[in-house]
């Protein structure tokens, strides 16, 4: 690396919370013009470290130097003054205001000290966006622009406040592959102009593509800081998790048998009268995984709800294992042989206040052996939970632990255990690895393949393209409530990306 100065040094940072050391003697430095990736599983201490840098937490020990000078970052304002800018995963923008208004918010140029000088604001925004190659329309309202553009606005907000150090927290999580590529161009442009970037991610391929150096954290400790050159996805995963991880699940070719989930010309209208699913037909056979790819909000949620009896169907039919269940209740679907891993395990998949044992009984607490004549047998629930906890390797508690006290990965294992233990013919898995870390993702993926090989029909709906591609035997792309094409799992992300944005309606004919 050429001789460039250090813009940031975090030395011996230790942060303790009651009962846990979230950051244990961590050192991180950032060279001017570099992209430094911060890698680690959920709870590894990434967020804590970044919150310290952004002035939200105060470290118990250690010091922070910016451009060689020790600083005390007592608040986000102090961090901003010191040149630190943060782009959160969830944007902090005001939807009804324009791009320019959002960018200058709280630091508005004024005339006579009180009146917002909007033309001056727009001029400055234009100037910055030109300088860094971040094209946005300053007059556009935030709720009218794409997510990718909103992210640019967040970056511009930081640049407007003269940030030299930009922290990007999981920036690609909300983007399509194309948008992610554009973001990388932006990042390269920024570093060429001397900005330095901390890039937080758990997507190993991205980290390898964009980062100059990579720091891996695990359980609050610094494991290693290494150059991206020479690192591989496998080596990074091993550092993150502390053991060998299978990144791509090994699977044998599928042997599809009889169709178990049959959907014909399904139409679904939401409660505002908007048609969200517009004539979808699909079929999932025993022993295969069919993946549905698509950008969030293209009718996937409504399709799932309609297929599982959680939302009324406007027209069309749904068959589960040969039985028509179109107008059945959710219970009717479950009884016809459906397992459903819901999109949002906290809002829907679990009663967080209930124990693991109670959650596992959610679908069948009314039947023997869980109960008889309305009388519940808590001990039997606990026994069953204990067996499943062992089988599905749920960690962090026993059968009577509240589900809300578990980590996301273990919560998902509880959901998985419940759905699979019911021995469903059809399993609908919606975003089954959302928010999980590498180890838990591996577990869920392996288990889904195993269930496929058991002869279940599995429909996988995911926003993660690589997940869909690595697990599915066939891939359907959903766009604006319709199937925009069917692809083999060997299709490239680019091909799918085009179909996902409605660019082309092709692929292998369904």
């Amino acid at each position, binding site marked *: 690396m050429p001789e460039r100065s250090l813009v940031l040094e975090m030395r011996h940072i230790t942060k303790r919370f009651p009962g846990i050391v979230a950051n244990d003697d961590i050192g991180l430095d950032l060279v001017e013009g570099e992209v430094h990736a911060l890698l680690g599983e959920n*709870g590894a201490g990434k967020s804590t470290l970044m919150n310290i840098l952004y002035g939200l937490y105060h470290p118990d020990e250690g010091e922070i130097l910016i451009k060689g000078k020790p600083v005390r970052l007592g608040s986000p304002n102090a961090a901003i003054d010191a040149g630190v800018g943060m782009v959160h995963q969830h944007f902090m923008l005001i939807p009804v205001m324009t791009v320019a208004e959002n960018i200058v918010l709280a630091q508005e140029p004024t005339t006579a000290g009180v009146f917002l000088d909007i033309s001056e604001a727009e001029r400055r925004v234009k100037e910055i966006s030109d300088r860094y190659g971040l094209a946005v329309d300053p007059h556009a309202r935030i709720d009218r622009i794409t997510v990718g553009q909103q992210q640019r606005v967040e970056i511009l907000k930081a640049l407007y406040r003269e940030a030299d150090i930009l922290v990007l927290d999981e920036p690609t999580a909300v983007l399509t592959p194309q948008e992610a590529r554009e973001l990388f161009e932006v990042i390269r442009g920024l570093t060429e102009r001397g900005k330095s970037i901390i890039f937080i991610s758990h997507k190993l391929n991205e980290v390898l593509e964009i980062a100059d150096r990579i720091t891996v954290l695990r359980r609050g400790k610094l494991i290693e800081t290494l150059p991206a050159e020479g690192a591989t996805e496998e080596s990074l995963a091993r550092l993150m998790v502390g053991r060998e991880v299978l990144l791509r699940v090994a699977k044998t070719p599928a042997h599809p048998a009889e169709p178990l989930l049959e959907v014909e010309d399904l139409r679904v209208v939401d409660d505002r009268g908007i048609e969200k699913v517009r004539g979808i037909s699909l079929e999932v056979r025993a022993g295969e995984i069919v993946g549905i790819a698509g950008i969030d909000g293209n009718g996937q949620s409504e399709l799932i709800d309609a297929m599982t009896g959680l939302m009324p169907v406007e027209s069309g039919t749904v068959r589960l294992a040969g039985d028509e269940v179109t107008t059945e209740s959710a219970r009717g679907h479950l009884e016809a042989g459906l397992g459903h891993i819901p999109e949002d395990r906290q809002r829907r998949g679990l009663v967080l206040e209930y124990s693991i044992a109670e959650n596992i009984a959610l679908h069948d607490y009314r039947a023997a052996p869980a109960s008889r004549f309305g009388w519940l047998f808590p001990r039997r629930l606990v026994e069953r939970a204990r067996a499943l906890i062992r089988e599905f390797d749920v960690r962090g508690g026993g059968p009577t632990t509240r589900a809300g006290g578990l980590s996301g990965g273990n919560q998902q294992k509880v959901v998985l255990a419940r759905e699979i233990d019911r021995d469903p013919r059809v399993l609908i898995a919606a975003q089954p690895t959302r928010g999980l870390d590498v180890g838990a993702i591996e577990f869920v993926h392996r288990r889904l393949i195993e269930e496929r090989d058991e002869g279940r029909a599995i429909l996988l709906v995911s926003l993660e393209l690589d997940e869909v591609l690595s697990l599915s035997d066939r891939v359907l792309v959903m766009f604006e409530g319709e199937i925009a094409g069917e692809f083999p799992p060997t299709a490239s992300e680019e091909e799918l990306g085009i179909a996902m944005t409605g660019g082309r309606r092709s692929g292998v004919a369904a």
Partner: protein
Amino acid sequence: MSDAGGGIPPVQPYGQPEGKLPDPEESFSARLALAQRAGGLVAPLLTVVIAFVMGGLVVLITTGKNPLKTYQAIFEGAGLNWFFQIPWDFDSVAAFNLQQTLIQTTTFNLVGLAVAFAFRCGLFNIGGQGQYLAGAILAVWIGSSFQDLNPYLHVGLAIVIGTLAGALIAGIAGFLKATVGAHEVISTIMLNWIVLWVGVYLFGLGGPLQNDTQTSVPVSNDVAEGAKLHVFWGDPLLQGLHIGIFFALGALIVYSILLNRTTLGYGVKAVGFNPEAARYGGISVARNYFLAMAISGAFAGLAGAIDILGWQFRLSTGDVQTSVVGFTGIAVALLGRNTAIGTGLAALLFGALFTGTSTRNLDPDIFQPELASNLTLLIQGLVVLFVGVDLAVLWLLGRLRRKGTATA
């Protein structure tokens, strides 16, 4: 961070974040949940202490009397001093006062359970008053009819019908919530008024249930001797303690078993905690709304029936219009944290307060009669106001802990 509750030893695994704290939002809600479980006893006790301190301040400022003496007077007026007068004299004045406290406790206990049960399903049953009155009206009707019925049958019939009346009234609100989504707060308040005016009509002059002999007074006939609940402590003519208290104790057990040991309770609580998860799980949210309201109303209806058969024996239009016990049930449930034991204890507290401040027991030298019953309402109001006190406690604890670690 091991929160293992069962037999599995806590391990430090790969998929398990080693703490739930790094994310500030998560840590707050996690700690809040913890405090609500762990602080289950602290917060209500603190609520009571704060309410009493503020009530004492009011006494001091408005009357200049010694609040401690006032509270002692209430304590003795409620008969709680009886426990300390050993050997126990079962016929003393204190014993009589205690009987009155327990009669009140019985009522508050049942109306408190009514509110608590609905809360557990995520519903705010503000109509305990109407359901209580419905139970009372039906009980007075059954009790004053059929003069020569077998006493056991008579009491049983009046109690069952009264209970069902409460369940029916609340069930209407539950049905409306389940079918058209009408908010239960609105519908139960409206039903309160419907029941109230029906009662005024029934017992009013010339009304269908008005007294047969005293035709100039808007009051019902008296309950037949055989339909009165047995008095097992004290003089029946002086309103001794009737067996209704055992119904209240039984209701506590039923409440607890229903919620914790039956599939019905599982469904009700699941809907209360997370209706979306319940729906996903195949539990009918609508059905549980209806059931929870009906059961809730049954507790209140039982309270009304027991008051009639236990000590009131008649209802006047004035009783119907001035009774507020159903609303006290809200405070009882809130203070008792919707648990069986908590509700029982909160009912005892309010029973003692109401009895202790009823003017007949008070010495004007240490307690102005005008303040007496208002003080109880004041404390009741403060308790409701401080329901959120656990948040304040949590904040305080958090600050103390932070200070502790900072100096450590």
